[in-house]
């Protein structure tokens, strides 16, 4: 009982733990990206570490966050079209947190995270609606037949693994031919009626994401909205280990959530994702 009370007490300061989790994730991400543009990063990291080590308790400035966000901006300047979408999301989350350390107004930070979530999820819906490959179910069909989705669960069905392996071999063999010959292959389905299932799954994805985005815009602190949002995050993690992005979504959720149990769920999602990123099981 005491352990649960300790956890509950800790979860009361959700803004503080959100910032700590964001800082942890940011540190790991910066380390993963550190081998790009070293000429700028080496002096910046050294000076940043020096200032943080000697002045962190004596200044009001969030030194670590400022150094890390500068590193993100450097990567963005040089690798704008190469960095992943969560690089942008990470920067858009860090900037309001830096602002918060000066103004200390929770309603401003919450508004930033609320709108950021709505914009990101709604844009993702628009992108899906614009993609004929997605809306026809062709994308999910390809991903499942190639083992790119539900890969952790497919391991329980060895016969499906054989089909996936055969599809991969056929695709590689096709890629060795001249594409101007316009040769084709026929993928084998891992399940019966996979084409129809993929189409349904594509529409369900779009509908769920739309509902989540509208709900967050309408009632950002409602318990039901956060139940739906956590289900969406866990659902996405079940289909693929997009751990970096999901950890960021969960941190945004944690900032907006009032319910202790759901706050715990968000923290567990972030910690789980961080563990998978560090061990390179998930994607950063």
């Amino acid at each position, binding site marked *: 009982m005491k352990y649960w009370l300790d956890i509950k007490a800790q979860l009361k300061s959700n803004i503080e733990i959100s910032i700590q989790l964001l800082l942890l994730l940011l540190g790991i991400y910066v380390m993963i990206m550190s081998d790009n543009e070293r000429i700028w990063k080496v002096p910046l990291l050294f000076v940043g570490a020096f200032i943080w080590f000697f002045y962190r308790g004596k200044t009001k400035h969030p030194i670590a966050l400022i150094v890390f966000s500068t590193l993100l901006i450097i990567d963005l300047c040089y690798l*704008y079209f190469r960095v992943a979408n969560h690089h942008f999301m990470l920067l858009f989350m860090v900037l309001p947190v830096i602002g918060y350390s000066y103004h200390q107004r929770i309603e401003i930070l919450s508004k930033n995270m609320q709108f950021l979530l709505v914009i990101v999820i709604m844009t993702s819906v628009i*992108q899906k609606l614009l993609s004929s490959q997605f809306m026809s179910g*062709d994308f999910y069909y390809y991903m499942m037949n190639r083992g790119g989705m539900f890969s952790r669960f497919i391991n329980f069905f060895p016969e499906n693994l054989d089909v996936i392996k055969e599809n991969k071999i056929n695709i590689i063999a096709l890629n060795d031919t*001249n594409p101007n010959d316009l040769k084709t292959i026929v993928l084998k389905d891992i399940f019966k009626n996979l*084409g129809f299932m993929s189409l349904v799954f594509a529409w369900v994805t779009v509908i769920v994401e739309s509902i989540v985005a509208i709900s967050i815009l309408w009632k950002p602190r409602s318990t039901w909205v956060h139940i739906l949002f956590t289900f969406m995050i866990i659902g996405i993690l079940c289909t693929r280990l997009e751990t970096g992005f999901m950890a960021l979504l969960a941190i945004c959720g944690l900032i907006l959530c009032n319910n202790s149990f759901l706050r715990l769920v968000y923290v567990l999602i972030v910690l789980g994702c961080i563990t998978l990123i560090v061990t390179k099981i998930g994607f950063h």
Partner: protein
Amino acid sequence: MPNKSKTFFLKYGVPWLAVIVIVIHFFFTKTQNLNPWKGGGYGMYTGIHFYYNQIYIPGMSSDSLMEANFDIKNTFRDLKIMPNDKNLKEAAELILKITEKDSIQIQIWKPTVNSKNGIYTRVLVNEIYLKKSEL
């Protein structure tokens, strides 16, 4: 800055920045063939990953070229992300410089699949034919 405008800026400044990045992303996807997976437009998992796009150079192996030269590896990566005329020309010039060929053709193909009949094939996205004399 007056207090009201300051609060407005703090509340909506970053979300607006996110919207601007998204607008830039869509501009590049429509005009420069940028892949939806990149450029801050949150279009990942809406289509087959650009990694599976195929760079085809008649008489040459693109994999061997990438293994042999770091610059080519980077140029080909950019080409797969954004197969526009500029990136194709850059790749063609680089290969002409390195291989000392008189001319080169580069094509970029992307995979497509039909979930109704399972047919998987490749479609041409963009191509270039460049002679050394045109450099």
